[in-house]
């Protein structure tokens, strides 16, 4: 199967005042098209940093990150933005909808930035997607009028509206109750299935991991292992993992 994301020996240092924090210490990861991959690990393990590198909102300090065949370190800020717009969809933990826009307008936004579709085409695609996530009736509502689960559905619709090859979700269910979280995951999985969109999501929730096609475990900025969902649940993510190489 075709590789969509290829991370090789990626490190990421952050300067925190005079101290340099090593968020990633050399991670390798290959993600194939159509995967429903979960990145797991406790707080501070580097999940979000890795997602940021894959999502092209950040570039590695050393090593390479290739997304859809492009080495992100070789791209300009503007090209990275283009890549994000056309190739990647984002789902945030706190939904991050534009509060002043309606549901419809929020979903339409990436299409407007793309400037590829005509108004009727945009409208048709947005409506279809909203129907798909079960919010056909709520197109004119403001995000503030929706529940948490509904908002995350809007976010999912926004992430998928450009038909990206890759959708990144950072703790997509962390702010939702378990039933709603379950529904969101079901929706994501269904879309993964029908649209053949690759999903990479971070979580530390074993229940969420259980839905993944495979689980990549991180600890202290390093790759630990890559397990099947069942094994990962069995291993128990919330337990402090041994450092790499010991397992």
């Amino acid at each position, binding site marked *: 199967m075709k590789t969509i994301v290829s991370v090789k020996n990626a490190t990421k240092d952050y300067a925190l005042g005079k101290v340099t924090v090593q*968020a990633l210490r050399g991670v390798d990861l290959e993600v194939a098209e159509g995967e429903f991959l979960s*990145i797991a*690990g406790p*707080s*501070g*393990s*580097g*999940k*979000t*940093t890795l*997602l*940021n590198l894959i*999502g092209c*909102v*950040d570039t590695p300090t050393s090593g390479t990150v290739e997304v859809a065949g492009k080495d992100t370190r070789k791209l300009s*800020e*503007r090209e990275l*933005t*283009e890549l*994000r*717009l*056309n190739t990647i969809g*984002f789902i*945030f*933990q*706190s939904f*991050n*909808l*534009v*509060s*002043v*826009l309606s549901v419809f*307008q929020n979903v*339409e*936004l*990436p299409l*407007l*930035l*793309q*400037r*590829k579709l*005509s*108004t009727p085409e*945009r409208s048709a695609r947005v409506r279809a997607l909203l129907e798909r996530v079960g919010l056909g009736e709520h197109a004119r509502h403001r995000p503030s009028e929706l529940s948490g689960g509904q908002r995350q559905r809007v976010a999912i619709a*926004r992430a998928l509206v*450009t038909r990206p090859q890759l959708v990144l979700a*950072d*703790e997509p269910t*962390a702010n939702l109750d378990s039933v709603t979280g379950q529904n969101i995951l079901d929706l994501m999985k269904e879309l993964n299935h029908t649209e053949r969109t690759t999903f990479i999501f*971070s979580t*530390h929730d074993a229940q969420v991991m259980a839905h993944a096609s495979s689980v990549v475990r991180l600890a202290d900025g390093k790759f630990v292992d890559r397990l099947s969902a069942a094994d990962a649940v069995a291993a128990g993510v919330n337990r402090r993992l041994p450092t790499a190489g010991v397992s």
Partner: protein
Amino acid sequence: MQGQIATLAVIAKIAFRNLFASRLKTMIVGGIILFGAMLVVVGGSFVDSIVAGMRRSIVGSVAGHIQVYSSQSKDPLEVMGGFSLEAPDLAALDDFAKVREVLQAIPGVKSVVPMGVNGAIVPSGNTIDVALARLRDLVRRKLAGKASPADLAAYQAEKGHVHQILSVLQGDIKNARQLQDEKALSPEDAAAVTKAVSPAFWASFDKDPLDSLEFLENRIAPQAIDADMLFLRYVGTDPAVFARSFDRMKIVDGTTIPEGKRGFLFAKFVYEDQVKLKTARRLDKIKIARNERGEKIAQDPELKRYVRENSNQVREILLQLDEPKTALFRTKLQGKLGSAETDVAKLLSAFFQTDDANFDDRYQFFYAELAPALELYRIRIGDTLTIKAFTRSGYVQSVNVHVYGTFDFTGLEKSPQAGALNLMDMVSFRDLYGFLTAEREKEIGELKKAMNAREISRDNAEAELFGTKEAAAPEATPEPAGRTIVAEATPGVRPPEGEGIASKLAREDLVNRVYNPDQLEAGAVLNAAVILADERKIPETIVAIEAAGKRAGLPLKAITWQEASGFIGQLVMAFQAVLIVLVLIIFLVALVIISNALVMATLQRVQEIGTLRAVGAQRRFILAMLLLESLVVAAVFGGAGVILGALVVSVIGKVGIPAPNDVSYFFFSGPRLHLTLGTSNLISALVIVFVVSGLSSLYPAWLAMRVNPRQAMQAEEG
């Protein structure tokens, strides 16, 4: 293309929604912009209107659009006068006819008015001098045996009057002695006054009236002289051309100076303010303040001061009262006040102690009952003025001119600035300035011949001239017009003896001589006012004048009305500068406040901006969004501010701001300032608003552009 419009639409949508979402911020920023825009429009219109008013006042009262003077002058020309009494040192333009010819040939020049501004000391109508002159006249008639019974009665009354004046003078000296070191007062002067008020002196007056009079004139009169000195600024000009060119000028009393004659016109303001009896002037001022400005004596400190001064300073009136008038005043005031007091000074003091309740009544009584017995003006229309002026080389020159009337400028009647310059014919001006005109030269030659070229030393000039006065104040100018006071004259120029050709030249002949236009034109002038057909052409005309001067070999320097008006002209620029500084400060403050508000708003929107960036918005999208927000606020609130300002201006324009005091008449160029709405103000207000909005958006926009899409993933590190 369609995509771009759609993007723009979404930017606009987000921008507008954000404006509504953060109403407080929008209101603060918008409020500042609205206020600022309004201020620029109203303040700008106000200053523009004042500047226009001052321009009308300055241009229309003396300066004209352009002033021309000699480029060889040491000092710059100041027609309106500065703070110093000294006239600027100007080189003369020797031949005005030629200057006029050159200037008139320049296109756009409507008229050229010859001018010269100078100051003069006028020792006018000193009360004791007037009384003594009258007494001397009566004495002479009595001695000649021509006195009628009425004259004899007048003689007695006048003696009483002089005696009363002396008593007042003695009182003054007593007061002065208490105030200052006794040594400062000459004991001889004090002794002379004591002698003059003594019954013995008056008992012997009839025996030797001429000697007694001489004693009074030489020893007593000089002691009272300084208080009544007048300093007059005047512009020497061709009165007819002046009146034609400055069409707001109008004659108030009397007539204009007849064409070709020597003469003097008082500025009405000077005439009222300095020549009128001070008590009467203060009554007028109180009446105007009460009637026109609705002020109350009880509340206004200035009016209170006037009342106090009128009540305390009755001396000026007392000095005018001879015995019959004293009796008349006593009776009238006792009746009016219902008082048994016999001292007229105290009665007057009580009478002038006015308040809001009795003012109108007392005012009316003063003018109806008391004023007819008083000399209301120290110099009357029809009098002949002897004007002493400091010439350029510092000696004192003197000239007799007939006072023909008073004038003012329509709309500027109450302005001290526009009413400060009196008017004099050009020939007299030249004499006073010290120009040796052809006529003067001829006259001196004749004088020298007639007198065997006798030089008069300064030391004895006064004594000798005294005789001149005696001989030359004759029936030819019947009372009261003959009030001329001669003081120190210039050696060799003034006739020292009162006989023959000298007297003739000095008196009627010179005063009444009619000069032909060539004589007026050909002489020297200090400067000339140039009136243009189109006042917008001032700069190019200035260039043309100086070029034409060069071609004609004339040392012409041309300056704008603003430069020529000296201190007052600079006020115009000062007003503009103050407005600009004020606007700058306000907008600087606005800039900081707006910028701050936008920074706060941006910080609150970091997640939203980060999300937009993560989802694929380029930096310029963010920039466009923020700038559009500022632009919309600037346009909506700035526009509203401009409209509101224009509304305020047009309302004030219709109603007019009343001049709060006399000085403002000049700035307002009339009793009310009517604001006019200039398009330049509207445009500059909008430009300033947009520039300020743009500038204040720069830093917040820069911050917003630096927001990293990572900041959208606000959730803590996994």
